[in-house]
């Protein structure tokens, strides 16, 4: 029986049939000319028919999409039948080219023109190339790029999901995600955890799986088996039964001995916040405000921002809401704030640093947060992403104070902030560890790259040591200032135990993970958690740290986590 091994990034055991993401559309040969049997008129007619059906398909998808995705799909649908694009393709066909090659070249010229216009228009160049791939696929009669459409739920297998794919992914149609690329912090992993779909990433060789193959996916173990055994069928059934009991969180995060570890939610807006509150979250540990900014050509107005923030505060009346100020840059570019041409965006002007190049945006955001907090009973905390020095922390605290915000804090994502946390916490009221970025910076490993998945594990002892040092800095500072975790690590029940043992005061995660994390935390005392944390810190590798901690938590296997 064939099997593949990767990195398990979202637990669950399921059996399903494989559907491969269509391969990227290949370029038609340069100078490809029409065979004598096809007239120019026939080629033009084929192109027009393809354009209409691509337009119809994109319009159909736009109808069911929401917000920004809808606007992008509507615009892309119209590009498929754009007279300027089609006119220049027809000219090439009349010059002897095939329809495929003609539309390929015509789109390339348009994309280049848009690219040269810069800014917002340069971003639309990507849309033109997406339309081109769809037109060529339609002309060839092969599936369009993107997530396959199916009436029956399936196991989606591909190289990696792009953010654009995840926007159109229908969780009701997908049983599990399996990718040959990507890492534990890739978009595939994050979307899988948010949707509660079992997922395995960096599983080399799964590109060879054929459509229709029946596979057993174990999202905790990180394995994929073709042709499930009787034992695996039983395991999948047991998971389905257990999963039903792992959906309820009573809103009281604590260890077996009663030691409290409040469990908070990571949210991106009011709709998320309402769902998180319903799932029992004890507050918001990370409000990602960039969701209010992304996909915009201009900075959102004060009114828009206030409305967006207030919706979240109202969902958590009387509870803590930690707002992260705008975290643009790297994988979240914004046309009015970030420079797309940076050679190394992860190490570039991003997060808090955009205040240096575009002063005013952060100040206006803080004013909007303060205005939104007025009249609500939420306990509003504010933190800046990508803080690296004590001076930055002090400056941010001063800006918060000027805006009338009383609880300023910092994200600890840059190793320098972890190492100097005692001095940084002298300037602010709290710290929150962003483990995704802390891991990528500690290990010097881009979190989107599949080949670096093993380096990009928050189980790396060096990362756990930086977390321990951040907590030690708070102890040394002497005022008991809280250090929470709001990265993906908090959603892993085994790591959550380690984090509690390291002295982390709150854990914030995707609301899906609350019940599983709460159940596992409640199975250990603080002393047991400290002992497991000690084991993890002393382990020589991420793999062994994980294996040793999991061995000390038999409840994980019993629940299929």
């Amino acid at each position, binding site marked *: 029986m064939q099997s593949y091994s990767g990195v398990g990034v979202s637990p669950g055991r399921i059996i399903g049939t494989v559907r491969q993401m269509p391969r990227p559309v290949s370029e038609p040969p340069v100078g490809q000319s029409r065979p004598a049997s096809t007239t120019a008129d026939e080629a033009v007619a084929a192109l027009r028919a393809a354009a209409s059906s691509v337009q119809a398909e994109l319009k159909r998808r736009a109808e069911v999409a929401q917000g920004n995705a809808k606007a*992008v799909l*509507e*615009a892309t649908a*119209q590009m498929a039948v754009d007279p*300027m694009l089609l006119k220049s393709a027809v000219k090439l066909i009349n010059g002897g080219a095939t329809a495929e090659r003609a539309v390929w070249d015509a789109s390339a010229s348009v994309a280049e023109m*848009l690219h040269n*216009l810069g800014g917002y228009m340069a971003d639309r160049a990507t849309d033109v190339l997406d339309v081109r791939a769809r037109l060529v696929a339609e002309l060839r009669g092969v599936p369009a790029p993107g997530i396959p459409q199916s009436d029956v739920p399936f196991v989606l297998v591909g190289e990696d999901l792009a953010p654009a794919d995840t926007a159109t992914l229908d969780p009701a149609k997908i049983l599990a995600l399996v990718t040959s690329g990507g890492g534990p912090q890739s978009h595939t992993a994050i979307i899988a955890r948010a949707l509660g779909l079992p997922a395995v990433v960096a599983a080399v060789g799964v590109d060879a799986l054929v459509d229709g193959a029946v596979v057993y996916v174990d999202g905790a173990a990180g394995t994929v088996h073709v042709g499930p055994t009787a034992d695996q069928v039983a395991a999948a059934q047991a998971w389905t039964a257990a999963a039903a009991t792992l959906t309820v969180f009573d809103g009281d995060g604590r260890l077996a001995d009663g030691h409290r570890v409040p469990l908070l939610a990571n949210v991106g807006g009011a709709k998320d916040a309402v769902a998180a509150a319903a799932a029992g979250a004890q507050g918001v540990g990370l409000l990602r405000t960039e969701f209010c900014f992304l996909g915009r*050509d201009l900075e959102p107005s004060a009114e828009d921002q206030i409305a967006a923030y207030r919706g979240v505060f109202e969902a958590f009346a009387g509870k803590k809401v930690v707002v992260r100020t705008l975290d643009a840059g790297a994988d979240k570019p914004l046309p009015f704030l970030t420079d797309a041409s940076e050679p190394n965006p992860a190490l570039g002007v991003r997060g808090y640093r955009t205040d240096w190049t575009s002063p005013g945006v952060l100040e206006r955001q803080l004013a909007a947060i303060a205005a939104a907090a007025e009249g609500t009973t939420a306990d509003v905390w504010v933190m800046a992403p990508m803080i690296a020095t004590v001076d930055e922390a002090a400056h941010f605290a001063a800006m918060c104070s000027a805006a009338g915000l009383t609880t300023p804090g910092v994200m600890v994502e840059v190793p320098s902030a972890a190492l100097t946390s005692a001095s940084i916490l002298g300037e602010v009221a709290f710290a929150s560890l962003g483990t995704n970025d802390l891991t990528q910076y500690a290990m010097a490993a881009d979190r989107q790259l599949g080949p670096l998945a093993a380096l990009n594990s928050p189980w790396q002892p060096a990362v756990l040591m930086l977390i321990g040092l951040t907590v030690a800095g708070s102890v040394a500072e002497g005022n008991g200032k809280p250090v929470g975790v709001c990265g993906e690590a908090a959603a892993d029940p085994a790591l959550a135990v380690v984090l509690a043992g390291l002295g982390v005061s709150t854990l914030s995660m995707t609301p899906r993970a609350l019940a599983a994390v709460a159940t596992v935390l409640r199975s250990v005392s603080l002393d047991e958690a400290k002992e497991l944390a000690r084991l993890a810190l002393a382990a020589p590798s991420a793999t062994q740290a994980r294996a040793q901690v999991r061995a000390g938590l038999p409840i994980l296997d019993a629940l299929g986590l």
Partner: protein
Amino acid sequence: MFERKATIASRVGLHARPAAIFAEAVGEVPIDVTIALESDPEEDAMDAASILSLMSLGASNGDVVVLRAEGEGAEGILDSLVRILETDLDAV
């Protein structure tokens, strides 16, 4: 040749969604319609049914554009297209 002026009402300008809605509407009329910024000469006018042309025009909120067309029913058609441009299409 008939001409009509219109002031762009959409807050983001004639981009993305507003451009898609307008281009589609122009694509459905039986005559050719061109669009240009008020400040640009007539020979720079572009095909108003092309979303790519509309986006490269770069018309912002409050900019005045000129629509031109000839043929049967051109006046009525231009009037209806002006109404689309003078609606805030982000709010639709």
